[in-house]
């Protein structure tokens, strides 16, 4: 079957009234949490993970994915209107978006953000559909050695790209790996780090860990930091951009989409980096760079297109290789696994309706988002007035009930509390919980494939260097490590010289 007919099958799944409803719920919820600073897609998806359990797998993934890309729309609204980025990926939109709002052109900024996002989302969706089959065909030939090397490179890339530096990044990932090792060892069946608790024999429950690490820890963190003032909002003004706006924004949207689509595929680069890069590129190619920071429409169009394109193409490594590049993707991977679907090169053939249904739903979701965001913008802004302490109580109760019902066991609630506290401590120590969870997922994946490759080669470690794809990934990983180390050493020297 060709891509068109496969997409048609996908549309059938996505247009099923129930799935359509979940898509709408997902993107609405995504927009809402995108608007609210401090409540991100990671928390929301983590919270809904136990609940989505009872849904059919298509509906549950469509819902969770909707939250994810919906959030990147919602984040731009508050950036523009209140100068408060709802999401990190929209932080850069504040610069010119809010300036536009101050000049009474908030409507145009919002419209350009939404339309640019829609265009980028469409391109991103198409890319997944087109790149999917050939990429899966290549990935099909990956053996244990290739997978081990790929995870090695991906993990290093993610860890070194983090804010706060490579050392802390790798540290957080390593901690995650240690926790990921708990449970029965795949190669021998021996129980590791279970401390005699039968509940830990299959490893630490992913949902309990994720909810604790993100939702609970975030609440503790938010409560302990002073409250924000959300009262000053700008008027929206005329919604439709002028001809001149379109003329200026159009190339920026194209460039932003390209940058976002490319960076989205790389593990670790993520949506935040793509919007930032797109903004920098716009500033550099602009004829009058001094307009940036004063309300240049390109400064809204490019990053907003970029973050949405990246949000979309981020699905490529997750769905096709089974390797998540960001914490949200790690959560979605977890959601697939809970439903007994293992993302990877075989997913497209074995779960064709699910795969193509998800792709089609993303495009429909993007359409919903334009409709939701433009006419209903006033509603979302009002959401900012919800008192946070109410929200927190709700989130806490929701987290505990959700985790408990998954295994009907209080043990998982203790796991939840444990990781809530650990998540808070990690943040306090400047270690990223996002990297912790990526380590938790990718570490065991690396170990398993490494040992399997060793078993297949009957103990010969050269297997990793004899296979070309594996060799390329290992060299890539080492290059990233070398780059990170030299910049770390250089910074250290500079600091020493200054000191």
């Amino acid at each position, binding site marked *: 079957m060709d891509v068109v007919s496969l997409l048609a099958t996908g549309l059938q799944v996505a247009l099923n009234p129930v799935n359509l409803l979940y898509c709408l719920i997902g993107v609405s919820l995504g927009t809402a949490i995108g608007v609210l600073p401090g409540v991100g897609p990671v928390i929301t998806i983590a919270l809904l993970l136990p609940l989505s*359990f*009872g849904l059919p*797998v298509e509906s549950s993934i469509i819902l969770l994915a909707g939250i994810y890309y919906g959030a990147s729309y919602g984040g731009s609204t508050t950036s523009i209107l209140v100068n408060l980025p709802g999401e990190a990926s929209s932080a850069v939109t504040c610069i010119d978006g809010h300036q536009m709002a101050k000049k009474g052109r908030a409507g145009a900024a919002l419209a350009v953000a939404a339309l640019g996002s829609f265009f980028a989302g469409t391109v991103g969706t198409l890319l997944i559909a087109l790149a999917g089959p050939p990429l899966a065909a290549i990935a*099909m*030939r990956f*053996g*244990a050695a290739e997978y081990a090397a790929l995870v090695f490179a991906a993990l290093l890339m993610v860890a070194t790209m983090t804010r706060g530096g490579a050392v802390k990044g790798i540290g957080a990932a390593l901690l995650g790996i240690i926790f990921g090792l708990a449970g*029965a060892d*795949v*190669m*021998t*069946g*021996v*129980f590791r780090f279970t401390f005699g608790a*039968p*509940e830990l*024999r*299959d490893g630490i429950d992913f949902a309990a860990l994720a909810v604790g690490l993100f939702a609970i820890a975030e609440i503790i963190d938010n409560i302990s930091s002073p409250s924000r003032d959300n009262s000053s909002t700008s008027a929206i003004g005329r919604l439709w951009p002028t001809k001149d706006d379109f003329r200026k924004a159009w190339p920026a949207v194209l460039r932003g989409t390209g940058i976002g689509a490319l960076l989205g595929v790389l593990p670790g680069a993520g949506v935040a980096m793509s919007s930032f890069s797109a903004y920098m590129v716009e500033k550099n190619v602009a004829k009058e760079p001094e307009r940036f920071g004063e309300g240049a429409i390109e400064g809204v169009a490019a990053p907003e297109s970029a973050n949405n394109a990246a949000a979309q193409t981020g699905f490529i490594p997750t769905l096709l290789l089974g390797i998540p590049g960001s914490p949200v993707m790690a959560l979605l991977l977890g959601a697939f696994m*809970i*439903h*007994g679907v*293992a993302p*990877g*090169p*075989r997913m497209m053939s*074995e779960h064709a309706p699910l795969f193509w249904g998800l792709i089609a739903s993303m495009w429909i979701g993007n359409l919903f988002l334009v409709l939701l965001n433009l006419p209903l913008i006033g509603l979302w802004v009002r959401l900012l007035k919800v008192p946070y302490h109410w929200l927190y109580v709700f989130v806490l109760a929701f987290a505990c009930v959700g985790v408990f019902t998954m*295994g*009907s*066991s209080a043990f998982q609630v203790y796991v939840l509390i444990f990781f809530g506290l650990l998540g808070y401590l990690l943040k306090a120590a400047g270690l990223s919980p996002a990297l912790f969870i990526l380590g938790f997922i990718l570490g065991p994946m690396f170990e*398993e494939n490494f040992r*399997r490759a060793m*078993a*297949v080669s*009957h103990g010969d470690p050269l297997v990793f260097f004899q296979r070309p794809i594996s060799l390329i990934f290992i060299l890539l990983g080492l290059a990233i490590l070398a780059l990170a180390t030299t910049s770390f050493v250089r910074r250290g020297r500079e600091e020493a010289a200054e000191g």
Partner: protein
Amino acid sequence: MKLLSLLAAFTLALAGLGTSATAQEAAYPNDLVRIVVGSSPGGTADTVSRLIAEALTEKFGQTFVVENLPGAGGALAAKTVKTAAPDGYTIQFIFSSFSILPSLNPAVGYDPVKDFEPIAMVSSAPNLLLVHPSFEVSTLAEWIEKVKANPGKFDYGSGGIGYSQHLSMEMLLQSIDGEAVHIPYSGSGDLLGALISGQVPFAFDTLTTAIPHIESGALIPLATTSAERSEILPDVPAVGEEVPGYELTAWNGFVAPAGTPKEIITALNDAITEYLQSDEAKAFFEKLGTKIDASTPEEFKETISGDYEKFAKVIEKAGITAQ
């Protein structure tokens, strides 16, 4: 619910101390019945148990509710059910790993024969010995010859340590006195991928999952582990035709804690076997690719204890123990 049943029991006790027990049994079930399943929602075991829970609810007019207690390959559920009151209000839906786990690891904390009262088997499916075309054998006899001629040279895959794919192969290797290196994958899906891409030349896997890949020519089926040939693949011989006495199937069914009254076991067995004869059940299992294998409690007991002894031997001989 609990309170109600307590009240009911109390009233019955007042009505006549000597007859209360029989009165209560006659009324079974007069409260909600838990069906514990040792796997996550969404899987085959979960789907099958929910289907039967629905049928039992309809039959008895009391709710039969499925409770998922995943963990430790199903051992967590077995441990919970073992200590539940043997009153028919807690039963478990089990699958073949139930009689394998205790031999793999005594720490699982239950005895599959002594701690449980079998109710009925539900369905069963054989494994298939599958080879990648590059291995260049087309019959079981050729495979045996090639493996025996190259001890320890070839790899075989499984869905994990102690899984039925693993033990099927160990059992076969032990019977033919051959040697091959075990490469465990995580789950059947992973194993199939490795097998299709030729990373491992051969493995056992369930018939249902293998069918599409046999049809596409990606894998060649050499033999089935059931005593007789499968109706779905009548041209594929049984391993037992070449290696006498070899037999293994993956099954599932219901058990209750030891000491559950005989009347309750019989009532449940009757209801389950009756449902399994319905057209609805037949259509469902046909879609699933497994064979309905309704049994009496006694027959199911034999299957469980037979498997327990058989696998204990295989596991001991192969030296597979997890601690």
